[in-house]
Protein backbone atom coordinates (compact mmCIF):
# COMPACT_ATOMS: atom_id res chain seq x y z
CA UNK A 1 0.00 0.00 0.00
CA UNK A 2 1.95 2.99 -1.26
CA UNK A 3 -0.90 5.51 -0.91
CA UNK A 4 -3.38 4.75 1.87
CA UNK A 5 -6.96 6.01 1.50
CA UNK A 6 -7.32 9.28 3.40
CA UNK A 7 -9.87 9.83 6.18
CA UNK A 8 -13.08 11.63 5.21
CA UNK A 9 -12.32 15.23 4.29
CA UNK A 10 -14.80 16.65 6.82
CA UNK A 11 -13.11 14.88 9.69
CA UNK A 12 -9.59 15.95 8.79
CA UNK A 13 -7.79 18.38 11.04
CA UNK A 14 -5.83 21.13 9.23
CA UNK A 15 -2.61 19.31 10.06
CA UNK A 16 -3.94 16.08 8.57
CA UNK A 17 -5.14 17.92 5.48
CA UNK A 18 -1.69 19.38 4.99
CA UNK A 19 -0.10 15.97 5.37
CA UNK A 20 -2.58 14.50 2.90
CA UNK A 21 -1.89 17.20 0.31
CA UNK A 22 1.86 16.70 0.70
CA UNK A 23 1.48 12.93 0.17
CA UNK A 24 -0.71 13.02 -2.96
CA UNK A 25 2.36 12.60 -5.19
CA UNK A 26 2.37 8.96 -4.11
CA UNK A 27 -0.73 8.34 -6.23
CA UNK A 28 1.22 9.43 -9.32
CA UNK A 29 4.25 7.22 -8.74
CA UNK A 30 3.09 4.32 -11.00
CA UNK A 31 2.39 6.76 -13.83
CA UNK A 32 5.67 8.61 -13.37
CA UNK A 33 7.71 5.39 -13.30
CA UNK A 34 6.02 4.22 -16.52
CA UNK A 35 6.70 7.56 -18.23
CA UNK A 36 10.34 7.45 -17.09
CA UNK A 37 10.81 3.99 -18.60
CA UNK A 38 9.16 5.20 -21.82
CA UNK A 39 11.70 8.02 -22.00
CA UNK A 40 14.43 5.43 -21.46
CA UNK A 41 13.15 3.61 -24.54
CA UNK A 42 14.21 6.45 -26.88
CA UNK A 43 17.78 6.26 -25.61
CA UNK A 44 20.02 6.67 -28.70
CA UNK A 45 21.43 3.13 -28.73
CA UNK A 46 23.20 2.33 -32.02
CA UNK A 47 21.07 -0.74 -32.75
CA UNK A 48 20.11 -1.58 -36.30
CA UNK A 49 17.35 -3.99 -35.25
CA UNK A 50 14.25 -3.11 -33.22
CA UNK A 51 15.58 -4.79 -30.08
CA UNK A 52 14.77 -2.22 -27.38
CA UNK A 53 12.42 -3.97 -24.90
CA UNK A 54 8.94 -2.58 -24.29
CA UNK A 55 9.92 -1.03 -20.97
CA UNK A 56 6.94 1.32 -20.80
CA UNK A 57 4.33 -1.37 -21.40
CA UNK A 58 6.00 -3.72 -18.93
CA UNK A 59 6.03 -1.02 -16.25
CA UNK A 60 2.32 -0.41 -16.88
CA UNK A 61 1.62 -4.14 -16.56
CA UNK A 62 3.75 -4.48 -13.43
CA UNK A 63 1.83 -1.64 -11.77
CA UNK A 64 -1.49 -3.07 -12.95
CA UNK A 65 -0.45 -6.17 -11.05
CA UNK A 66 0.96 -4.46 -7.94
CA UNK A 67 -1.42 -1.49 -7.63
CA UNK A 68 -4.53 -2.07 -9.78
CA UNK A 69 -6.28 0.97 -8.34
CA UNK A 70 -3.41 3.28 -9.33
CA UNK A 71 -3.04 1.90 -12.88
CA UNK A 72 -6.54 1.63 -14.39
CA UNK A 73 -6.87 1.03 -18.16
CA UNK A 74 -7.75 4.67 -18.83
CA UNK A 75 -4.47 5.77 -17.27
CA UNK A 76 -2.68 3.17 -19.40
CA UNK A 77 -4.45 4.79 -22.36
CA UNK A 78 -2.96 8.18 -21.44
CA UNK A 79 0.53 6.68 -21.02
CA UNK A 80 0.16 4.91 -24.37
CA UNK A 81 -0.87 8.21 -25.94
CA UNK A 82 2.34 9.77 -24.64
CA UNK A 83 4.26 6.83 -26.14
CA UNK A 84 2.60 7.54 -29.51
CA UNK A 85 3.66 11.17 -29.35
CA UNK A 86 7.17 10.18 -28.27
CA UNK A 87 7.73 7.60 -30.98
CA UNK A 88 6.02 9.58 -33.74
CA UNK A 89 3.25 7.03 -34.31
CA UNK A 90 -0.34 7.90 -35.26
CA UNK A 91 -2.01 9.01 -32.02
CA UNK A 92 -3.99 6.06 -30.62
CA UNK A 93 -1.95 3.01 -31.63
CA UNK A 94 -0.07 2.43 -28.39
CA UNK A 95 -2.86 4.11 -26.42
CA UNK A 96 -5.52 1.61 -27.48
CA UNK A 97 -3.15 -1.36 -27.21
CA UNK A 98 -1.93 -0.34 -23.73
CA UNK A 99 -5.52 0.11 -22.51
CA UNK A 100 -6.66 -3.25 -23.92
CA UNK A 101 -3.69 -5.18 -22.52
CA UNK A 102 -4.03 -3.50 -19.12
CA UNK A 103 -7.73 -4.37 -19.03
CA UNK A 104 -6.84 -7.97 -19.85
CA UNK A 105 -4.16 -7.90 -17.15
CA UNK A 106 -6.78 -6.71 -14.70
CA UNK A 107 -9.03 -9.65 -15.59
CA UNK A 108 -6.11 -12.07 -15.29
CA UNK A 109 -4.74 -10.57 -12.06
CA UNK A 110 -6.28 -13.29 -9.81
CA UNK A 111 -4.27 -15.90 -11.75
CA UNK A 112 -0.97 -14.20 -11.01
CA UNK A 113 1.08 -14.97 -7.92
CA UNK A 114 -0.41 -18.43 -7.34
CA UNK A 115 1.49 -20.96 -9.39
CA UNK A 116 5.01 -19.65 -9.09
CA UNK A 117 7.11 -17.11 -10.92
CA UNK A 118 7.59 -19.19 -14.08
CA UNK A 119 3.85 -19.45 -14.75
CA UNK A 120 3.49 -15.70 -14.15
CA UNK A 121 6.29 -15.12 -16.62
CA UNK A 122 4.65 -17.40 -19.20
CA UNK A 123 1.33 -15.58 -18.91
CA UNK A 124 3.14 -12.29 -19.32
CA UNK A 125 4.89 -13.59 -22.45
CA UNK A 126 1.46 -14.30 -23.92
CA UNK A 127 0.24 -10.81 -23.03
CA UNK A 128 3.30 -9.21 -24.67
CA UNK A 129 2.85 -11.38 -27.75
CA UNK A 130 -0.77 -10.29 -27.91
CA UNK A 131 0.38 -6.68 -27.74
CA UNK A 132 2.85 -7.22 -30.59
CA UNK A 133 0.10 -8.84 -32.63
CA UNK A 134 -2.32 -6.03 -31.80
CA UNK A 135 -0.06 -3.22 -32.99
CA UNK A 136 -0.15 -4.47 -36.61
CA UNK A 137 -3.93 -4.23 -37.12
CA UNK A 138 -4.07 -0.92 -35.25
CA UNK A 139 -1.36 0.56 -37.48
CA UNK A 140 -3.25 -0.79 -40.50
CA UNK A 141 -6.39 0.89 -39.17
CA UNK A 142 -4.45 4.16 -39.03
CA UNK A 143 -3.52 3.64 -42.68
CA UNK A 144 0.14 2.70 -42.17
CA UNK A 145 0.58 -1.08 -42.44
CA UNK A 146 3.93 -2.26 -41.05
CA UNK A 147 5.84 -5.55 -41.16
CA UNK A 148 5.46 -7.37 -37.84
CA UNK A 149 8.14 -10.04 -38.09
CA UNK A 150 11.02 -7.72 -36.98
CA UNK A 151 9.14 -7.21 -33.71
CA UNK A 152 9.77 -10.83 -32.75
CA UNK A 153 13.25 -9.84 -31.57
CA UNK A 154 11.76 -7.07 -29.47
CA UNK A 155 9.35 -9.57 -27.94
CA UNK A 156 12.29 -11.78 -26.99
CA UNK A 157 14.25 -8.94 -25.36
CA UNK A 158 11.04 -7.84 -23.62
CA UNK A 159 10.35 -11.19 -22.00
CA UNK A 160 13.98 -11.44 -20.98
CA UNK A 161 13.89 -8.06 -19.29
CA UNK A 162 10.53 -8.57 -17.52
CA UNK A 163 12.10 -9.82 -14.24
CA UNK A 164 14.23 -6.67 -14.09
CA UNK A 165 11.30 -4.31 -14.70
CA UNK A 166 9.04 -6.19 -12.27
CA UNK A 167 11.74 -6.15 -9.59
CA UNK A 168 12.35 -2.45 -10.18
CA UNK A 169 8.65 -1.64 -9.72
CA UNK A 170 8.38 -3.95 -6.70
CA UNK A 171 11.40 -2.28 -5.10
CA UNK A 172 9.78 1.12 -5.56
CA UNK A 173 6.57 -0.21 -4.03
CA UNK A 174 8.49 -1.54 -1.02
CA UNK A 175 10.31 1.73 -0.47
CA UNK A 176 7.08 3.71 -0.67
CA UNK A 177 5.17 1.28 1.54
CA UNK A 178 7.86 1.62 4.19
CA UNK A 179 7.28 5.37 4.30
CA UNK A 180 3.49 5.38 3.77
CA UNK A 181 1.69 7.75 6.18
CA UNK A 182 -0.79 6.05 8.49
CA UNK A 183 -3.85 8.08 9.35
CA UNK A 184 -4.83 6.09 12.43
CA UNK A 185 -1.74 7.24 14.33
CA UNK A 186 -2.10 10.87 13.25
Amino acid at each position, binding site marked *: *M*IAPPPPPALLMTPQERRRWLLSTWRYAVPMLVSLLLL*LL*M*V*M*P*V*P*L*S*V*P*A*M*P*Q*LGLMAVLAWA*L*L*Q*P*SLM*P*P*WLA*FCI*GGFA*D*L*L*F*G*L*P*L*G*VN*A*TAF*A*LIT*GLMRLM*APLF*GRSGLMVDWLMLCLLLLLFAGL*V*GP*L*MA*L*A*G*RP*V*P*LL*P*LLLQWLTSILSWPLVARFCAAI*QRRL*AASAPSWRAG
Partner: protein
Amino acid sequence: MDWTPAPRRPTAIRRQQNLALLSAVVSGGVVAGGLILLLLARVNPDTAAGLRRTTADLVAPTWAVLRAPVDGLAALAEGIGDYFGAIDRARHLETELDTANARLRAARAGMEELRRLKALMRVRSPQREVVATARIAAATTGTVVRTAMLAVGTSDGVGEAMPVIGAEGLIGRTTEVGRNAARVLLITDPLSRVPVIVERTGQVGLAAGRNQPTLQLIDLSGATVPLVTGDRVVTSGDGGVYPPGVPVATVVDARAAAPVLRPAARLLGAGFVTVETAWLPVPATEPQGPVFDAPVPVEARRRGAPTPRLRDADAPPISNGTGG
Protein backbone atom coordinates in the same frame (compact mmCIF):
# COMPACT_ATOMS: atom_id res chain seq x y z
CA MET B 1 -0.72 -9.25 -5.43
CA ASP B 2 -2.62 -6.11 -4.62
CA TRP B 3 -1.38 -4.72 -1.34
CA THR B 4 -4.33 -2.43 -0.73
CA PRO B 5 -6.50 -4.00 1.99
CA ALA B 6 -10.11 -4.74 1.05
CA PRO B 7 -12.59 -2.42 2.76
CA ARG B 8 -14.75 -3.86 5.58
CA ARG B 9 -17.54 -1.28 6.04
CA PRO B 10 -20.59 -1.76 3.76
CA THR B 11 -20.49 1.86 2.57
CA ALA B 12 -16.84 1.52 1.65
CA ILE B 13 -17.55 -1.73 -0.20
CA ARG B 14 -20.36 -0.06 -2.16
CA ARG B 15 -18.14 2.91 -2.91
CA GLN B 16 -15.41 0.62 -4.21
CA GLN B 17 -17.92 -1.27 -6.37
CA ASN B 18 -19.21 1.99 -7.84
CA LEU B 19 -15.69 3.17 -8.54
CA ALA B 20 -14.83 -0.14 -10.23
CA LEU B 21 -17.93 0.14 -12.43
CA LEU B 22 -17.09 3.73 -13.32
CA SER B 23 -13.51 2.77 -14.10
CA ALA B 24 -14.68 -0.06 -16.37
CA VAL B 25 -17.04 2.25 -18.25
CA VAL B 26 -14.37 4.94 -18.66
CA SER B 27 -11.86 2.33 -19.82
CA GLY B 28 -14.25 1.02 -22.45
CA GLY B 29 -14.87 4.60 -23.51
CA VAL B 30 -11.21 5.41 -23.95
CA VAL B 31 -10.62 2.26 -26.02
CA ALA B 32 -13.46 3.31 -28.31
CA GLY B 33 -11.99 6.81 -28.37
CA GLY B 34 -8.61 5.37 -29.33
CA LEU B 35 -10.12 3.55 -32.30
CA ILE B 36 -11.80 6.80 -33.38
CA LEU B 37 -8.44 8.60 -33.07
CA LEU B 38 -6.88 5.95 -35.32
CA LEU B 39 -9.60 6.47 -37.93
CA LEU B 40 -8.95 10.21 -37.71
CA ALA B 41 -5.24 9.55 -38.27
CA ARG B 42 -6.16 7.44 -41.30
CA VAL B 43 -8.21 10.25 -42.82
CA ASN B 44 -5.77 13.00 -41.87
CA PRO B 45 -2.22 11.77 -41.12
CA ASP B 46 -1.37 15.20 -39.67
CA THR B 47 -3.61 14.60 -36.65
CA ALA B 48 -1.76 15.54 -33.47
CA ALA B 49 1.35 16.57 -35.41
CA GLY B 50 1.58 19.66 -33.22
CA LEU B 51 1.53 17.54 -30.06
CA ARG B 52 4.21 15.26 -31.50
CA ARG B 53 6.34 18.30 -32.30
CA THR B 54 5.97 19.60 -28.75
CA THR B 55 6.94 16.22 -27.28
CA ALA B 56 10.01 16.08 -29.49
CA ASP B 57 10.88 19.65 -28.46
CA LEU B 58 10.81 18.56 -24.82
CA VAL B 59 12.58 15.21 -25.16
CA ALA B 60 15.30 15.76 -27.77
CA PRO B 61 17.25 18.51 -25.93
CA THR B 62 17.10 16.43 -22.73
CA TRP B 63 18.64 13.41 -24.40
CA ALA B 64 21.14 15.62 -26.24
CA VAL B 65 22.44 16.72 -22.82
CA LEU B 66 22.22 13.27 -21.22
CA ARG B 67 24.21 11.52 -23.93
CA ALA B 68 27.18 13.92 -23.72
CA PRO B 69 29.07 12.05 -20.94
CA VAL B 70 28.53 8.71 -22.68
CA ASP B 71 29.88 10.17 -25.92
CA GLY B 72 32.88 11.52 -24.06
CA LEU B 73 33.69 8.08 -22.63
CA ALA B 74 33.25 6.47 -26.06
CA ALA B 75 35.59 9.05 -27.63
CA LEU B 76 38.17 8.37 -24.91
CA ALA B 77 38.01 4.62 -25.52
CA GLU B 78 38.33 5.21 -29.26
CA GLY B 79 41.33 7.49 -28.70
CA ILE B 80 43.11 4.82 -26.66
CA GLY B 81 42.27 2.18 -29.26
CA ASP B 82 43.78 4.35 -32.00
CA TYR B 83 47.30 3.92 -30.56
CA PHE B 84 47.27 0.19 -31.14
CA GLY B 85 48.19 -0.83 -34.66
CA ALA B 86 48.86 2.76 -35.73
CA ILE B 87 51.97 1.84 -37.80
CA ASP B 88 50.18 -0.87 -39.76
CA ARG B 89 47.35 1.50 -40.48
CA ALA B 90 49.72 4.25 -41.63
CA ARG B 91 51.41 1.90 -44.12
CA HIS B 92 48.06 0.72 -45.39
CA LEU B 93 46.91 4.32 -45.81
CA GLU B 94 50.08 5.24 -47.71
CA THR B 95 49.47 2.55 -50.32
CA GLU B 96 45.82 3.60 -50.55
CA LEU B 97 46.86 7.22 -51.02
CA ASP B 98 49.14 6.28 -53.90
CA THR B 99 46.41 4.45 -55.79
CA ALA B 100 43.94 7.27 -55.07
CA ASN B 101 46.40 9.87 -56.40
CA ALA B 102 46.86 7.89 -59.58
CA ARG B 103 43.10 7.73 -60.08
CA LEU B 104 42.75 11.42 -59.34
CA ARG B 105 45.28 12.33 -62.04
CA ALA B 106 43.29 10.30 -64.53
CA ALA B 107 40.01 11.84 -63.40
CA ARG B 108 41.24 15.43 -63.63
CA ALA B 109 41.24 15.36 -67.42
CA GLY B 110 37.70 13.90 -67.39
CA MET B 111 36.46 16.57 -65.00
CA GLU B 112 37.72 19.38 -67.19
CA GLU B 113 36.03 17.76 -70.18
CA LEU B 114 32.77 17.41 -68.22
CA ARG B 115 32.90 21.07 -67.16
CA ARG B 116 33.29 22.17 -70.77
CA LEU B 117 30.49 19.92 -71.94
CA LYS B 118 28.18 21.20 -69.19
CA ALA B 119 28.97 24.78 -70.13
CA LEU B 120 28.25 23.90 -73.75
CA MET B 121 24.88 22.32 -72.87
CA ARG B 122 24.03 25.09 -70.35
CA VAL B 123 23.36 22.51 -67.60
CA ARG B 124 22.19 24.23 -64.45
CA SER B 125 22.68 22.19 -61.31
CA PRO B 126 21.46 23.38 -57.90
CA GLN B 127 23.96 23.61 -55.06
CA ARG B 128 23.87 21.54 -51.93
CA GLU B 129 23.57 23.67 -48.83
CA VAL B 130 24.07 22.54 -45.24
CA VAL B 131 21.45 23.96 -42.88
CA ALA B 132 22.50 22.48 -39.56
CA THR B 133 24.83 19.90 -38.07
CA ALA B 134 23.76 17.87 -35.07
CA ARG B 135 24.10 14.60 -33.25
CA ILE B 136 21.25 12.13 -33.14
CA ALA B 137 19.68 12.91 -29.76
CA ALA B 138 17.15 10.10 -29.41
CA ALA B 139 15.91 7.19 -31.46
CA THR B 140 13.09 4.67 -31.44
CA THR B 141 14.78 1.31 -31.50
CA GLY B 142 11.81 -0.55 -30.09
CA THR B 143 8.72 0.17 -32.16
CA VAL B 144 7.15 -0.49 -35.52
CA VAL B 145 8.64 2.75 -36.86
CA ARG B 146 12.26 3.76 -37.14
CA THR B 147 12.72 7.43 -36.41
CA ALA B 148 15.38 9.49 -34.71
CA MET B 149 15.33 12.92 -33.13
CA LEU B 150 17.79 15.75 -33.66
CA ALA B 151 18.11 18.64 -31.23
CA VAL B 152 17.79 21.23 -34.03
CA GLY B 153 14.52 22.70 -35.26
CA THR B 154 12.91 25.64 -37.00
CA SER B 155 15.00 28.04 -34.90
CA ASP B 156 18.07 26.66 -36.72
CA GLY B 157 16.44 26.83 -40.15
CA VAL B 158 15.50 23.16 -40.36
CA GLY B 159 12.26 22.45 -42.20
CA GLU B 160 10.24 19.43 -43.20
CA ALA B 161 11.36 17.08 -46.00
CA MET B 162 15.06 17.92 -45.78
CA PRO B 163 17.72 15.25 -46.35
CA VAL B 164 19.79 14.14 -43.34
CA ILE B 165 23.24 12.92 -44.36
CA GLY B 166 25.99 11.37 -42.29
CA ALA B 167 29.70 11.14 -43.02
CA GLU B 168 29.37 7.68 -44.60
CA GLY B 169 26.07 8.08 -46.38
CA LEU B 170 22.38 8.84 -46.26
CA ILE B 171 20.59 8.69 -42.89
CA GLY B 172 17.04 9.77 -43.71
CA ARG B 173 14.83 12.82 -44.04
CA THR B 174 13.14 15.15 -41.59
CA THR B 175 9.41 14.65 -41.13
CA GLU B 176 8.11 16.67 -38.19
CA VAL B 177 10.01 19.73 -37.09
CA GLY B 178 9.44 21.60 -33.84
CA ARG B 179 11.23 24.67 -32.51
CA ASN B 180 14.23 22.87 -31.07
CA ALA B 181 13.81 19.32 -32.34
CA ALA B 182 13.33 17.52 -35.61
CA ARG B 183 12.11 13.98 -36.17
CA VAL B 184 14.06 12.06 -38.79
CA LEU B 185 12.52 9.21 -40.78
CA LEU B 186 15.42 6.77 -41.08
CA ILE B 187 15.91 4.96 -44.38
CA THR B 188 15.18 1.62 -42.65
CA ASP B 189 11.64 2.73 -41.69
CA PRO B 190 8.88 0.80 -43.51
CA LEU B 191 7.55 4.10 -44.88
CA SER B 192 10.88 5.22 -46.34
CA ARG B 193 11.45 5.05 -50.13
CA VAL B 194 14.69 6.52 -51.45
CA PRO B 195 15.06 6.97 -55.25
CA VAL B 196 18.43 5.40 -56.04
CA ILE B 197 20.65 4.51 -58.95
CA VAL B 198 23.04 1.56 -59.13
CA GLU B 199 26.45 3.08 -59.84
CA ARG B 200 27.84 0.27 -62.01
CA THR B 201 24.83 -0.52 -64.18
CA GLY B 202 22.87 2.74 -64.16
CA GLN B 203 19.62 1.02 -63.19
CA VAL B 204 17.22 3.16 -61.16
CA GLY B 205 14.96 1.95 -58.38
CA LEU B 206 13.76 2.58 -54.86
CA ALA B 207 15.56 1.59 -51.67
CA ALA B 208 12.72 0.57 -49.36
CA GLY B 209 13.06 0.10 -45.61
CA ARG B 210 11.32 -2.71 -43.75
CA ASN B 211 12.25 -2.18 -40.08
CA GLN B 212 15.24 -4.48 -40.45
CA PRO B 213 18.98 -3.77 -40.61
CA THR B 214 18.88 -4.17 -44.40
CA LEU B 215 16.98 -2.41 -47.17
CA GLN B 216 15.27 -3.79 -50.27
CA LEU B 217 15.83 -2.55 -53.81
CA ILE B 218 12.38 -2.44 -55.40
CA ASP B 219 10.92 -1.18 -58.68
CA LEU B 220 14.26 -1.70 -60.43
CA SER B 221 14.17 -0.48 -64.03
CA GLY B 222 16.67 0.08 -66.78
CA ALA B 223 19.06 -2.24 -68.59
CA THR B 224 18.65 -5.84 -67.47
CA VAL B 225 22.16 -6.29 -66.19
CA PRO B 226 22.34 -8.69 -63.26
CA LEU B 227 23.52 -7.03 -60.06
CA VAL B 228 26.47 -8.47 -58.18
CA THR B 229 27.23 -8.41 -54.48
CA GLY B 230 29.12 -5.24 -53.61
CA ASP B 231 27.44 -2.96 -56.16
CA ARG B 232 27.22 0.54 -54.74
CA VAL B 233 23.81 2.22 -54.68
CA VAL B 234 23.63 6.04 -54.51
CA THR B 235 20.79 8.53 -54.54
CA SER B 236 19.60 9.51 -58.01
CA GLY B 237 18.22 12.95 -57.15
CA ASP B 238 14.72 12.01 -58.35
CA GLY B 239 11.89 13.21 -56.18
CA GLY B 240 13.69 16.38 -55.24
CA VAL B 241 14.49 15.68 -51.58
CA TYR B 242 17.82 13.85 -51.65
CA PRO B 243 20.73 15.33 -53.63
CA PRO B 244 22.18 12.95 -56.24
CA GLY B 245 25.32 10.94 -55.59
CA VAL B 246 24.96 10.38 -51.84
CA PRO B 247 25.94 6.78 -50.94
CA VAL B 248 22.89 4.88 -49.69
CA ALA B 249 23.84 1.22 -49.52
CA THR B 250 25.72 -1.68 -51.06
CA VAL B 251 24.15 -4.81 -52.49
CA VAL B 252 24.66 -7.80 -50.18
CA ASP B 253 22.26 -10.28 -51.78
CA ALA B 254 21.77 -9.81 -55.52
CA ARG B 255 19.99 -13.10 -56.17
CA ALA B 256 16.84 -12.37 -54.20
CA ALA B 257 13.72 -11.27 -56.09
CA ALA B 258 14.17 -7.85 -54.50
CA PRO B 259 17.93 -7.35 -54.01
CA VAL B 260 18.94 -6.84 -50.37
CA LEU B 261 21.04 -3.78 -49.52
CA ARG B 262 23.09 -2.88 -46.48
CA PRO B 263 23.02 0.83 -45.56
CA ALA B 264 26.31 2.64 -46.12
CA ALA B 265 26.04 4.64 -42.90
CA ARG B 266 25.58 3.41 -39.36
CA LEU B 267 22.21 5.08 -38.90
CA LEU B 268 22.38 5.64 -35.16
CA GLY B 269 26.15 5.74 -34.82
CA ALA B 270 27.86 8.31 -32.68
CA GLY B 271 28.87 10.61 -35.55
CA PHE B 272 27.43 13.97 -36.45
CA VAL B 273 24.85 14.29 -39.20
CA THR B 274 24.11 17.27 -41.42
CA VAL B 275 20.71 18.54 -42.46
CA GLU B 276 20.73 19.98 -45.97
CA THR B 277 18.18 21.92 -47.94
CA ALA B 278 15.96 19.84 -50.17
CA TRP B 279 17.67 19.29 -53.55
CA LEU B 280 14.77 20.55 -55.66
CA PRO B 281 12.00 21.73 -53.36
CA VAL B 282 8.49 21.20 -54.61
CA PRO B 283 7.37 24.51 -56.16
CA ALA B 284 4.50 26.08 -54.27
CA THR B 285 1.59 26.11 -56.68
CA GLU B 286 -1.21 28.61 -56.32
CA PRO B 287 -4.37 27.00 -54.97
CA GLN B 288 -6.96 27.01 -57.70
CA GLY B 289 -10.70 27.06 -57.31
CA PRO B 290 -12.73 23.97 -58.13
CA VAL B 291 -13.71 23.23 -61.70
CA PHE B 292 -17.27 24.37 -62.25
CA ASP B 293 -19.62 22.74 -64.67
CA ALA B 294 -22.21 25.46 -64.33
CA PRO B 295 -21.51 29.19 -64.69
CA VAL B 296 -21.27 31.15 -61.44
CA PRO B 297 -24.10 33.65 -60.92
CA VAL B 298 -23.14 37.31 -61.10
CA GLU B 299 -24.37 37.93 -57.54
CA ALA B 300 -22.08 35.23 -56.18
CA ARG B 301 -19.15 36.54 -58.15
CA ARG B 302 -19.72 40.02 -56.76
CA ARG B 303 -19.47 38.55 -53.27
CA GLY B 304 -16.06 37.05 -53.98
CA ALA B 305 -16.69 33.65 -55.53
CA PRO B 306 -13.75 32.48 -57.67
CA THR B 307 -14.10 32.79 -61.41
CA PRO B 308 -15.26 29.54 -62.99
CA ARG B 309 -12.62 27.34 -64.54
CA LEU B 310 -13.76 25.29 -67.46
CA ARG B 311 -12.81 21.68 -67.86
CA ASP B 312 -10.02 21.45 -70.40
CA ALA B 313 -7.85 18.76 -71.91
CA ASP B 314 -6.15 17.67 -68.68
CA ALA B 315 -9.46 17.40 -66.82
CA PRO B 316 -11.71 15.27 -69.01
CA PRO B 317 -15.46 15.58 -68.36
CA ILE B 318 -17.08 12.95 -66.17
CA SER B 319 -19.58 12.07 -68.92
CA ASN B 320 -16.63 10.57 -70.78
CA GLY B 321 -16.69 7.60 -68.44
CA THR B 322 -13.02 7.82 -67.49
CA GLY B 323 -13.77 9.00 -64.00
CA GLY B 324 -11.51 12.07 -64.21
